[in-house]
Every structure is written in structure tokens, then in C-alpha cells.
């Protein structure tokens, strides 16, 4: 695989761009693999890459029902942060952050990880106290975090509403300087190309329709491209985990819900950070192309439809103007929906399953993008060794039975309220 570099661009420019190779091969399935990863999104591709890179397992296929990166990895608002409160989450997301920091160079693909800092506004002394609790936990776990007062926030993001007419005046904020955004598609493509470079077969337009069994064990999959044998099967199909889980006989505490995302027309730089509104559901950043990329709350009912409700569009716009009155004349260019696996505690499920040979990676709720590298890393470890990686020890399926749930928001077991 030819390396990407400024020099390769220069050389190819002189030869009329005729010598670039495919980013990954157009593979067709072999009869069997050591590991099949179902799902050619960020998590599945990262898993395949780390199986090869960290564990030397190269006889791997990634099966994607559509095209690589066509699911949530290419539909999200690209925020990356590691500001988690609960033991079990904090270290996992910080590990992910560290992987992000080296990702472009590790993959030789610029994923444009931009550590521009993320802040969440606080609107009362109590809310700022609870943010301080979080920030304290972060610092005590070696993660950068700061608490800002109103004037600090004003200096950093003067375009927020500091006027007397603000319905929920800004009191302060929690800030993580290392947080930021990345180019979502590049993450999928970068992992695909790097995994392909290690010999992984990436097979697009290949939908898994069932599982092959030997007794109680899963030994392969049925697909639209025929039967494929596998030593182990890893499931990484965000949004559709229940559907495929059901085919394998797994009963899961997951509901699929739509989360909408929005982008405005491209503008000259206006928002230099990731900003989230602590009084309502709204978060925004500005892409390198110039569009303001933002989102809000779940639509709030089970859905696989990848489209949202007009009422939510309106609510998100209201929150946008409440936080940033100056974007009232900025125009919404496009909005779309992604299907989220919501769990009853808003934390993921990533573990071996009760079914021999089947491993599960799902339930990422609306936070899967930032977890992509650590999820792939830990899932690869779990598949390779058969045992959960220590960083995902808390993400077992059994926690709902035992009560060891990780409910960051304390919102309770109704998935749509998370």
C-alpha cells in the first residue's frame, strides 16, 4: 500500500492523478475466516484493524450490507471528548482520546482530529457544582478539565447569549481543551484502508441474513453473497444490533431510536470550539468546510427510519438561537437522522455473549463516534482472547441483571429518556 504524504500528492499531481491506487481492495468473500466482523462502520473496521495490528489475526473479513461508513460513523456530529463521570466510563473514553491523538499517523490517513476544546454551559450554581464534580473526577483520573465562570465563558465564546433577555442565563461552563472533532468519513476510510493493508477483506454490499451453527456455537454467517465460515463472529452493527442479535438468538436490552443531525450553509469561521447548551438539548461545532454541525435530543420513539420529526427540528432551532442569537439568519442546509442503539443506562454493551463464538459490540447510544478507536481496540482484544479487555469490564450484558448499571445521567431504564 503506497503511503500518503505531501510528497505522494506532489508526485501524483505531476502525473495527472492517474497513479493512485484503490484505498482498499474490492474483496469478495473467501469460504471462511478466523474472524468475521459484521458491520463496516467505524467500530467494525477499527476492530478488524486492531485484530491484525495488535493480535496478528489477519484472516479477517468485515461484512458490510451497504457501503463502508454508511451508517452512524458517517451520520454523526463528530464530537470527541472524554468527560465521563462514572468509574468504568472515565478510563475507557480517555483511552479512546489517547488513540484519537495518534490516529492520523497510526493509520496514515488524516482524520483531521481537531482538539479545539469542548465546553458545556452551566445555568445555575447547582449545575456548576455538578460539573465541578465531573471535572474533579476527570482531573483525578489524569484527564484535562476546567471549570469556567461566566466571564471566562464570555471571553472564550463571546457570541453566546449574555444579554438580559436570556431565558437561562449562563453561569459558567465545564471545559475540556483536548476535546474536539474529527472528519467522520475519514475515520471509516482510514481504518478500512489500514485494515486492508494488513490483509483484511472488506466486503461491501454483503448483508448478513443468518448465522451458521454447530451445536450451540456460531461457526459462520449466511449472507447475500453466500455462506461464510468463521472461527469467531463479532457483531458491530450500531442501530441494528437487535435485528441481528435476534437472528443469533440474543435477547437484548436495546431500543433503536432516531437522533437527528443538522448542518448549515458553509460560513467563514465563527464557532471555534464545540459548544453544548447546558439548559437544553443542543450542541454545535463548525466543520472545516464551514458548516455549523449541530444536534439535539432524540426524537424519542423507537425508529429505524433514519429520518426525524419536524417538531424536533423546531426545538433544536429554538435552542440554537437561545444559546447563539447571532445565528438567527444563518440557514439550515440539511438535516438527517441516524439510528441509535439506546441502552437502559446509556452505556454501551461490548462483551462475549452467552453464545459460543459470538461477540457483541453495540448499544453505543448517541456516543459511539468518540469511542471508535477504543471500542475497536478493546473489542479486538475481547475477540482475540475470549475475555473482556479490562477497560470494558463494566460493559457486560449481565450488568442489567445484577444492577451494576452505568447511568451517567441517572435517567433510568427507559431508553428513550437517556
Amino acid at each position, binding site marked *: 500500500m503506497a503511503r500518503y504524504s505531501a510528497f505522494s500528492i506532489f508526485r501524483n499531481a505531476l502525473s495527472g492523478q492517474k497513479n493512485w491506487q484503490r484505498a482498499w481492495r474490492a474483496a469478495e468473500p473467501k469460504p471462511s475466516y478466523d474472524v468475521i466482523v459484521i458491520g463496516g462502520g467505524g467500530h467494525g473496521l477499527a476492530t478488524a484493524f486492531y485484530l491484525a495490528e495488535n493480535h496478528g489475526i489477519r484472516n479477517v473479513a468485515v461484512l458490510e450490507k451497504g457501503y463502508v461508513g454508511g451508517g452512524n460513523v458517517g451520520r454523526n456530529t463528530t464530537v470527541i471528548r472524554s468527560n465521563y463521570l462514572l468509574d468504568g466510563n472515565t478510563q475507557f473514553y480517555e483511552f479512546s482520546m489517547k488513540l484519537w491523538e495518534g490516529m492520523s499517523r497510526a493509520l496514515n490517513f488524516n482524520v483531521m482530529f481537531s482538539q479545539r476544546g469542548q465546553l458545556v454551559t452551566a445555568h445555575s450554581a447547582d449545575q456548576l457544582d455538578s460539573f465541578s464534580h465531573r471535572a474533579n473526577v476527570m482531573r483525578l483520573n489524569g484527564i484535562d478539565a476546567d471549570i469556567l465562570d461566566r466571564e471566562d465563558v464570555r471571553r472564550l465564546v463571546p457570541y453566546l447569549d449574555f444579554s438580559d433577555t436570556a431565558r437561562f442565563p449562563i453561569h459558567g461552563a465545564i471545559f475540556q481543551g483536548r476535546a474536539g472533532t474529527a472528519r467522520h468519513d475519514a475515520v471509516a476510510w482510514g481504518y478500512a484502508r489500514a485494515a486492508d493493508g494488513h490483509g483484511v477483506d472488506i466486503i461491501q454490499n454483503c448483508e448478513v441474513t443468518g448465522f451458521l451453527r454447530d451445536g450451540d456455537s456460531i461457526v459462520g454467517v449466511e449472507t447475500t453473497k453466500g455462506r461464510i465460515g468463521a472461527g469467531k463472529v463479532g457483531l458491530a452493527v450500531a442501530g*441494528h444490533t*437487535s*435485528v441481528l442479535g*435476534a437472528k443469533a438468538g440474543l*435477547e*437484548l*436490552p*436495546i*431500543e*433503536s431510536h432516531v437522533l437527528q443531525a443538522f448542518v448549515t450553509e458553509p460560513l467563514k469561521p465563527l464557532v471555534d470550539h464545540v459548544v453544548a447548551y447546558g439548559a437544553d438539548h443542543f450542541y454545535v461545532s463548525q466543520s472545516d468546510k464551514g458548516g455549523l454541525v449541530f444536534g439535539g435530543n432524540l426524537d*424519542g*420513539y*423507537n*425508529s*429505524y*427510519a433514519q429520518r426525524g*420529526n*419536524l*417538531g424536533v427540528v423546531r426545538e433544536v432551532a429554538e435552542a440554537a438561537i437561545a444559546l447563539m442569537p447571532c445565528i438567527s439568519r444563518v440557514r439550515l442546509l440539511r438535516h438527517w437522522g441516524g439510528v441509535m442503539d439506546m441502552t*437502559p443506562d446509556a452505556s454501551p454493551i461490548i462483551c462475549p455473549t452467552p453464545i459460543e463464538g459470538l461477540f457483541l459490540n453495540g448499544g453505543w447510544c448517541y456516543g459511539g463516534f468518540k469511542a471508535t478507536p477504543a471500542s475497536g481496540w478493546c473489542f479486538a482484544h475481547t475477540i482475540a482472547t475470549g475475555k473482556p479487555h479490562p477497560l470494558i469490564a463494566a460493559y457486560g450484558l449481565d450488568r*442489567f*441483571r445484577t444492577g451494576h448499571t452505568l447511568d451517567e445521567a441517572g435517567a433510568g*431504564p*427507559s*431508553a*428513550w429518556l437517556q
Partner: protein
Amino acid sequence: MLRIECPCCGLRDHDEFRYGGDASVMRPAHDDPDPQAWYRYVYIRANPAGLHREFWQHVIGCRQWLVVERDTRNHAIASVELARQLSARKSPARKPPA
């Protein structure tokens, strides 16, 4: 925007309703001591890509809880009934509690 035909109030916008989740799971009796039954009721969901029976409350309206059958792939609503009527149908010989 989803619109739901409330059996009492007619076709109303989504934002007048409160979602109540999967209506196909059976709530155990209030004094059922079986942890497995409660675990399944609270956590396990079929989550179908297709017809889904679900609770909605017309909370900004008649406040009745409804059971709606809706296709999760395209949001088309097949039926709406008062939850209370459904429960009555299930146990026609209701008797007042002792």
C-alpha cells in the same frame, strides 16, 4: 411530524404526546416476587424493525394512555386504542380488589 389519532381527541401532533415505550412487554403483577420477570419487563426489548406496539399518553389532551401500533421503518400507524380498553378486554371479568 408524527401525528397520532387519539381515540378521544382526533388526529393530533406528536408534541402533545408522551412516549411510554414497548407495550408488548407484560408488567408482572404488583406483588410478583420473581426477579427474572421484573428484569425482563424492565430491560429486555424485542425492538423490531417493523410493527411495534407502544404506549403513548395524550398528555397535553385527554391524558389517556394509548396503545399504538406503528411501523418503526416508516412511522406508519396501523392502529390506536385506549390502553384501558385493551386491559379490560384482556380481563373481562374484572372484580374490584378486596
